């Protein structure tokens, strides 16, 4: 997949090293296309730390690779909300001791005591946003404020739908569409979930996360399940698309920078986290990725058009957001089976 190109081309920055002030290294495990290179350069210039980055395209891939032996080779990673609690329960995270981060106070109060990391002992906010879908207005003129566009599409959209290759988000969305709770262990509800996805799959063209923007820009997909900022970027690149705020509910997420267990450069990881809590720096991420930051004082650094971009401003009647919930093993086994049946 494309992410492997990015992995292969992971860039080594040597700004500090060339002037003889190498202050060690920092190894980041990050989502694809989620941090501007200029910001990494700036960090290297300020600290003299050499940065290397590897990328992944789903929370599940991040977990699988860390458990598969990559723990100990990275310092920081950027898991989504539910994955923070899963990684913590799997013992993959290192605790941030009080006082180790001098910019901890910059975090907005509403993001301080979050359900997936009470008291922010293991993580700091990176970006937050929603997962929904964008629809090409060249192809479809009707009402898009329903998840039926994805799960029971009108004829003109059949076979032109790209879905994120992300079990957690697809199943959470399907649960909202059916009006059933996440991680339900009710058999009838799980059966309905299975039937819904089996039926919907017939109308889907592809599963693709790292290409979710490209298929909309190129016109290969008329509907693309997508993260709000990524959808905004697709629109900025010329796709005539509209982001949907479905009435059934909205999947929201927050990505967080975590300190990994056995980090080879723990000190530098903390420096990087402090760096990302500076409003100016995290605003650079927001300007690039088109999501929202969780830090006080970023507004003055944000691009003017961000504040009005439809992907970030839900309509007044938009439903409250729901995070993807981590399920227990009994339900997860059924989810995995449903997912395999969808993708077989």
């Amino acid at each position, binding site marked *: *997949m494309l992410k492997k190109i990015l992995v*292969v081309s992971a860039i080594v920055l040597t700004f500090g090293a060339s002037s003889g002030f190498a202050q060690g290294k920092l190894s980041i495990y990050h989502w694809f296309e989620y941090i501007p290179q200029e910001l990494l350069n700036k960090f290297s210039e300020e600290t003299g730390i050499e940065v290397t980055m590897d990328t992944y395209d789903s929370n599940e891939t991040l977990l699988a690779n860390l458990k598969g032996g990559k723990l100990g080779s990275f310092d920081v990673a950027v898991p989504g909300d539910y994955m923070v609690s899963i990684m913590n329960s799997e013992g993959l995270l290192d605790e941030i001791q009080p006082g180790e981060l001098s910019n901890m106070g910059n975090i907005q109060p509403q993001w301080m005591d979050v359900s997936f990391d009470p008291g922010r002992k293991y993580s700091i906010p990176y970006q937050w946003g929603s997962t929904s879908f964008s629809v090409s207005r060249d192809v479809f003129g009707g009402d898009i404020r329903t998840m039926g566009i994805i799960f029971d599409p009108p004829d003109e959209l059949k076979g032109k739908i790209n879905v994120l290759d992300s*079990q957690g988000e697809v199943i959470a969305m399907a649960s909202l569409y059916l009006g059933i709770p996440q991680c339900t262990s009710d058999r009838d509800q799980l059966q309905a979930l299975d039937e819904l996805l089996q039926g919907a799959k017939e109308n889907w063209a*592809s599963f693709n996360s790292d290409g979710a923007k490209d298929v909309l820009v190129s*016109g290969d997909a008329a509907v693309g399940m997508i993260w709000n900022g990524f959808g905004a970027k697709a629109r900025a690149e010329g796709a005539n698309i509209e982001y949907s705020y479905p009435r059934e509910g909205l999947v929201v997420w927050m990505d967080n920078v975590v300190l990994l267990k056995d980090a080879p450069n723990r000190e530098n990881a903390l420096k990087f986290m402090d760096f990302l809590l500076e409003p100016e720096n995290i605003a650079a991420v927001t300007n690039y990725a088109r999501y929202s930051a969780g830090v006080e004082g970023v507004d003055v650094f944000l691009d003017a058009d961000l504040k009005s971009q439809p992907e970030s401003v839900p309509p007044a009647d938009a439903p409250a957001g729901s995070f993807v919930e981590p399920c227990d093993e009994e339900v997860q086994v*059924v989810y*995995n*089976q449903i997912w395999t049946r969808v993708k077989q």
Partner: protein
Amino acid sequence: MEPVYHQKRAFDPLRIWLLLPSWVVIGVFLLIPVGLMLLISFMTKEFRGGVIWEFSLAAYDQFLIDRGLFGDDPPTIEWTYIVIFLRSIVQATIATIFCLIIGFPTAYFIATREPQNRTFWIFLVTVPYWVNLLIRTVSLKFLIRDNGPINEFLLSFGLLSEPLGLINTNIAVQLGLFYSYLPFMVLPIYASVERFNFTYSEAAADLYADKWSTLRRIVLPNVVPGIAAGCILVFIPSLGAFIAPDLLGGAKNFMIGSLIEEQFKGNAGNWPFGAAASMILLTMVLIALLFYTRQQSKGEV
């Protein structure tokens, strides 16, 4: 019967020392990993990836027996994975046939050029393969997609009224496999055609054989080892491919490779099951190869 001097030489100390590096390489890079896979396939899966070191047949059970969504229906045969395996075998077989149809004439053409020109033709065959497989597959995706150059060309000249709709289908996967592994067919066939002594063909022609009989009765039997090697080299990697189904097939229809990848890198996180699927694949390939080598050695006797 093996000649006796072979057995004597097996105990030659120098011979043992000289072979040691290959044994170490085979042991470290082949036997240990495969042994580990075999072991893991009989272990208990850990929730969300990983292995609990307790014996279990759950992985093979999951592969073969369907107990419904909740695991307590009466057991029936599990078709999901059999279908995935069959799909992979069909895809790999078709890819091999297409590679043979295109690859044999190509190799024959190259091998019958003037010796000084052959390198140039071989060079042309290999040039695209200097580029990484992933990049080539992505390029193919750009070429064949609905708004890609091929469709735009055909549409603009009125040869089609709507796009071919190749992308995200099994045909696109097929195209990807064929394109990825074509030189693996051309090169071994070229090597054996090049070694073929064409005076035999001349002799056949002198004996009033027409071109078709010459090809069928003189050339083909002599180049069969090259064809067989080519078929094996195309079939086996096609069987385990996952880049083509992911990128060209839209990740919608699992092939064996993508099924295994999903167990280790994707959502499922079921290492023993991934290992079991790998072992079943390995066993199938081994049986096919054993069958082939037996046929070969029979032919030599």
